[in-house]
């Protein structure tokens, strides 16, 4: 990556795609309270995505606003990490994704709040408060399922094993960025380790580290997410309601 535009766009796309994936749970979550919780978290992610996209558009200076960036880019132009585009899977997979993402976003936004870029600092200061709630919620479910029944433990461990390799991409070094993601890993490890231990789950040690999202090389899943998200806007350009 290079420069504040790519950095801001990457963060925006993480939040946007995470929001879209979480919204897929609406009316389908295992209980009503959880349905509301996931919709709320999706809304927080969407809020952060809008601020970041708007700012990215200004940094680019090519006249693209948040809508142009969200609705009129193809998958190869998206810069989100692969983690957020992975299918929701069962509830345990969604919770593993939520938990790992929040454990990354909380230290990210906290560091952003102290960075030299005023706009990014303001967004970070706002979003970190919300991330703290997301992290609490994800950790609660990881512990509840991990240290629950034999079946819930089995599925939570399978989810952690499945999602874990995708966390490495989040911390790829980028020394030129306003916040170098590599510097966030210690905070992530510090949060994730004890929660997995309390959940009686084993932290994977697989060296497989799929990546490419930050360069626009995605899994086959992203294009389907975008197709659903963008179809209305593309079919009716400029529509308003």
């Amino acid at each position, binding site marked *: 990556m290079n420069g504040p535009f790519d950095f801001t766009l990457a963060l925006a796309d993480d939040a946007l795609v995470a929001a879209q994936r979480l919204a897929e749970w609406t009316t389908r979550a295992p209980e009503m309270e959880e349905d509301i919780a996931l919709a709320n978290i999706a809304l927080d992610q969407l809020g952060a995505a809008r601020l970041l996209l708007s700012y990215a558009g200004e940094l680019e200076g090519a006249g693209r606003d948040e809508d142009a960036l969200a609705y009129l880019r193809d998958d190869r132009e998206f810069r989100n990490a692969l983690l957020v585009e992975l299918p929701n899977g069962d509830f345990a997979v969604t919770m593993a994704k939520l938990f790992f993402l929040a454990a990354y976003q909380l230290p990210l936004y906290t560091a952003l709040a102290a960075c030299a870029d005023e706009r990014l600092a303001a967004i970070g200061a706002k979003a970190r408060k919300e991330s*703290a709630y997301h992290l609490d919620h994800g950790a609660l479910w990881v512990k509840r399922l991990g240290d629950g029944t034999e079946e819930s433990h089995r599925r939570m461990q399978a989810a952690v094993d499945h999602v874990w390799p995708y966390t490495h991409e989040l911390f790829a070094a980028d020394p030129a960025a306003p916040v170098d993601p590599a510097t966030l890993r210690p905070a992530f490890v510090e949060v994730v380790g004890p929660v997995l231990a309390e959940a009686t789950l084993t932290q994977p040690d697989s060296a497989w580290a799929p990546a490419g999202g930050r360069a626009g090389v995605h899994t086959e899943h992203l294009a389907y997410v975008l197709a659903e998200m963008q179809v209305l806007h593309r079919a009716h350009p400029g529509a308003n309601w």
Partner: protein
Amino acid sequence: MVSARSASPTTANGIGRASAREAVAGVVDPEIRVITIDELGILRAVEEDPASGRVTVTITPTYTGCPAMDVIRADIRRALAAAGHPDAEVRTVYSPPWSTDWISEGGRAKLAAAGIAPPAPVPAAGVVSLTLAVRCPQCGSPETEQVSRFGSTACKALWRCRSCSEPFDHLKAL
């Protein structure tokens, strides 16, 4: 600019500005209709250009994704137009971030009266503490439990009273 909320509304051009500020301060939150945007602490400033009469209102969202912001902007413009200020601009700022500590005492009392438990003071930076007892807004009992930390709007959690069995909303400390 950010301290303008507590600044005196009277200036050289006193009457006009005071009425603009009063008009805006009276706008109710569209999702919690018992409390005004001023009491909620999201109204940051109301400034009137003495020469042009143009009013600039500065607000900040409770949560980044708060879906009520568009309605609030429209309500502010409508209130200003009704008070004789048709030329208005509503700006949104994100820094400093809104905190539940900005909800006024009067606002807290109104929330409690409407059955919404007001938030506790925000704990130390970066940490969200959920251990403080929340009193039931119906019977006042501290014997309450959280049903879900996410509720009917982004800023509320769902609680239940173990004494009187009533479910209630709690505005989350943020």
